[in-house]
């Protein structure tokens, strides 16, 4: 017993150091590697010149000042810090931050805050903008009538136009009409690929398509687990998986 103890004491110093360094470094590297990727969550279209402003932050400041995220520098009727567009749990909100000329939603002046939905027109001074939510912020009800928290939902983002497809249960990708994501292209099989949920998270599997499905540039054999930011390529289309 004594011999064991002395051996243990001798060895454990190195083992302890090893475990500590491994554990802490693994956590630190993991923290660094999990870089958040941002995507276009909504767009504001300036109706005066049809220019599009992409919104990739949860909170965006709008005003004439240079330090605003959306700097409307040419417009004299916009206050320096005019409004804030924010995505909250319940959806998109516009806040009037004590601007002089006020914020109007669909022609109606708001007092402090107002929830906005896809297609609303918002005016700041004489700037009129149309708001398009990119599928974000729409409260989605599931079968039980519960409002699902949209920010948590898994989705496939089409990289061509940044449109999002919300995943629920399983999702078929293919050329056939009954597929959830229907891509009418010749190089895509009738039922090309499937994205579905298992106990271990979301998986992608190829349904013996002719041209194959690629996950981050690698051909998919059988089923592969999906992680946030993975890119699924089907024919000429690419989707980014987000969760």
């Amino acid at each position: 017993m004594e011999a064991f103890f002395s051996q243990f004491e001798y060895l454990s110093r190195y083992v302890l150091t090893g475990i500590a360094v491994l554990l802490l470094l693994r956590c630190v590297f993991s923290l660094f590697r999990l870089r958040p990727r941002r995507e276009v969550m909504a767009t504001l279209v300036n109706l005066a010149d049809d220019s599009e402003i992409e919104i990739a932050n949860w909170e965006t400041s709008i005003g004439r000042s240079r330090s605003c995220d959306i700097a409307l520098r040419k417009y004299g009727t916009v206050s320096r810090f005019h409004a804030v567009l924010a995505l909250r749990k319940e959806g998109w909100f516009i806040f009037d931050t004590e601007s002089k000329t006020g914020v109007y939603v669909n022609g109606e002046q708001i007092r402090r805050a107002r929830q906005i939905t896809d297609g609303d027109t918002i005016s700041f001074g004489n700037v009129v903008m149309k708001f398009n939510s990119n599928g974000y912020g729409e409260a989605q009800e599931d079968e039980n009538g519960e409002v699902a928290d949209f920010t948590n939902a898994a989705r496939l983002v089409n990289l061509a136009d940044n449109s999002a497809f919300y995943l629920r249960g399983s999702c078929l990708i293919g050329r056939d009409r009954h597929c959830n994501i229907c891509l009418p292209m010749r190089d895509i099989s009738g039922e090309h690929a499937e994205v579905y949920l298992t106990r271990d998270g979301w998986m992608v599997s190829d349904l013996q398509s002719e041209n194959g499905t690629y996950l981050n540039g690698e051909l998919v054999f059988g089923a592969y687990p999906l992680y946030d930011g993975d890119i699924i390529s089907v024919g000429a289309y690419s989707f980014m998986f987000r969760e």
Partner: protein
Amino acid sequence: MATKKKKATHARRYRKPVKWPFWLLLMTLFQLSCMLQIYINGTQESMVTLFTVYGVYIAAEWIYFFVFGIILRRKSFEIELIAFFLTGIGLTLTTSVYPDRAYTQLVAVLMGMIVFIVMLWVLSDTKRVIKLRTPVAILALAALGITLIIGDEINGARNWIVIGDGALSIQPSEIVKVAFVFVGAATLEHLQSTRSLTKYILFAGACIGMLFLMKDFGTALIFFFTFIVIAFLRSGDIKTIFLVCTAALLGGLGILTFRPYVANRFQTYRHVWEYSNGGGYQQVRLLIYSVSGGLFGLGIGNGRLRSVYAATEDLAFGMVCEEFGIIIAFTVLLTFVALVVYSIRYSVAARSTFYSIAALAASSLLLFQAALHVFGVTDLLPWTGVTLPFISRGGSSMMCCWGLVAFIKAIDVRTYRRYDKIERS
């Protein structure tokens, strides 16, 4: 092509969140070998205490991970793994150096975990957070005010409230740290509506002023640093920050000129070897014994620093160096730096500026405190006796650290995400 493929798989592997069961098992192994070392060395005489403390702590870890990982199906446990690991080192030092205070420390750790979980819940709703800011500010000022009136003086600083003959002593300034960050952060629409920093400057000034009156200079310095970070993040205005810093510097010089006794607390600064048996006793011992630990440490219970006063509180860094080795000590410090870098990188994708500001303020507070501790004991900066986050013994400080880590945890959107609500149809 081959290298590209390799790169892709490499990137894929790292993007996966840490597989917590494996690392938790490894961490348990670490803590069990610490326990066995204490058992062999016999520094903890009561076997019941030893096994209870470690048993309860390891059980608490597993219960936490079981509930959040398996029942609530959360991912990303890096921050918790780091916090649990550092707390485990602190618990080991306390159990071995102060056998009779092991239970108190265990209770503090458990309370810290509860604070962490409650804070995460509070932070989950942005609206609730905004409503709570004013009451929290008032409570924080009240807590400091009460300490100033009825507080007791321990080790030269009047920042303790002792209840019932030393059975329970609380350090309100530690808990106010969490409130300080909480009050400082705000959502973007709030920042834009009230663009001036006046209210927050008044709040911060009141807090720091009261800490000065308590002669708790270390904590006052930490508050001031956090204030600078928050003020800069809120306004982005470097001129105001410069002005505040200049004012503080002048104020500090004024205090040193008109109240010279303040400087007496720091008379051994840069002269510890001349007072090696007087005021510099602890620091000189720390410098000698840290080196004797070498790369891998002497093993728990074999160190000599443990016999010096306040070994596991003010000298915790030296204890880690001597008994765990300098490799672990430096990795621990690196972790604090990593938390700051993580907060900076993640702040762009946070759900609100509230979370960005809070996480960055909390992580830089932890880093600054660790730096003040390490540079203080090694005589590079004046020694103010602040604790090393998570590792030093102390209930209030433990709860403060867990509370602050909740801010860092809340910046990540995945914190509040369930991963399998829907079954496959």
